[in-house]
């Protein structure tokens, strides 16, 4: 592994597209589309997740996300948030592909509303169908190294384990299993969900993840635009620390100043 000379030379690739930002941000829960756009700008994110929903035909002139966040400048990653079966998720992504014209999508099949944990049986089923249909799914999943491998074998182009429940902001609760997934994966691994503040994002990157996806940590901060900046810095710091290779931990103190020549 070579240390990058600058953050702009440290890139990662998914579905044949290369990105320099390792932060993916959601576009939900913002007070306004203006605030949302400002936060995306401050985060430096090159990919944003979006949802697919029915149009409001009673008010077709209401402002649209695409008017504020340009899909030609930022990659839209359609997500299946809210889908509880493989069939619903597949149907949603077929529509997303038609609306956006791209195959890069995020699959998320939820098991229950309380924890928003993924239903891995349905997730695997949906991944297989989507890959057959030519989609390139980045897949939200449990922090299980075996399940992650199975998704990869099924054709998932990125593995996205949760660090804590969606929207909880509890931070990375599963450092051991995230690391095991990273070590075993042949595709990019991104922590999806659980980040609450900047140090959580740095921690995910220090574990060797290729990126981090977050929404609520930015959208529900008192100052979302400032938090977006913080997250950008944290992801870059964590990435650099991972590349630098941290020191070994010691059980006791070890002085930093030389003992020789001590008066």
């Amino acid at each position, binding site marked *: 592994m070579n240390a990058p000379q600058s953050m702009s030379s440290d890139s990662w690739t998914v579905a044949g597209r290369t990105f320099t930002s390792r932060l993916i941000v*959601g*576009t*939900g*829960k*913002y007070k306004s*589309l203006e605030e*949302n756009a400002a936060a995306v700008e401050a985060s430096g994110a090159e990919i944003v*997740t*979006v*949802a*697919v*929903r*029915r*149009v409001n*035909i009673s008010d*077709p*002139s209401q402002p*649209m*996300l*695409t008017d504020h966040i340009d*899909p030609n400048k930022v990659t*839209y990653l*359609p*997500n299946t*948030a809210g889908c509880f079966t493989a069939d619903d998720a597949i*149907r949603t992504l*077929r*529509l*997303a*592909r*038609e*609306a*956006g*014209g791209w195959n890069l999508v995020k699959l998320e099949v939820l098991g229950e509303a309380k924890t928003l944990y993924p239903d891995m049986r349905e997730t695997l089923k949906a991944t297989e169908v989507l890959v057959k249909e030519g989609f390139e799914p980045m897949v939200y999943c449990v922090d299980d190294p075996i399940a992650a491998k199975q998704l990869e074998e099924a054709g998932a182009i990125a593995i996205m384990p949760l660090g804590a429940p*969606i*929207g909880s902001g509890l931070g990375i609760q599963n450092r051991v299993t995230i690391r095991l997934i990273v070590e075993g994966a042949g595709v990019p691994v991104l922590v999806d969900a659980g980040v609450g503040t900047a140090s959580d994002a740095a921690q995910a990157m220090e574990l060797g993840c290729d990126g981090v996806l977050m*929404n*609520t940590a930015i959208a529900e901060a008192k100052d979302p635009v400032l938090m977006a900046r913080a997250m950008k810095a944290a992801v870059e710091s964590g990435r650099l620390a991972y590349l630098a290779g941290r020191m070994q931990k010691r059980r006791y103190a070890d002085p930093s100043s030389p003992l020789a020549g001590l008066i």
Partner: protein
Amino acid sequence: MTGGLSIAAMLGELGLDARKVAVERNLEIVPRATLGEVAVAEGDAFEIVHFVGGG
């Protein structure tokens, strides 16, 4: 909806920009390129979706 109208014309009547939505008719995706050709028939069920903010 009046018979014989194309889906593109229906979207126009609803005030929707066909370039920003996807249409499903009776659970089948209608490819964007054919929106102008496919006629709306009596009893058709449509889903019209677009991208909104989400996580």
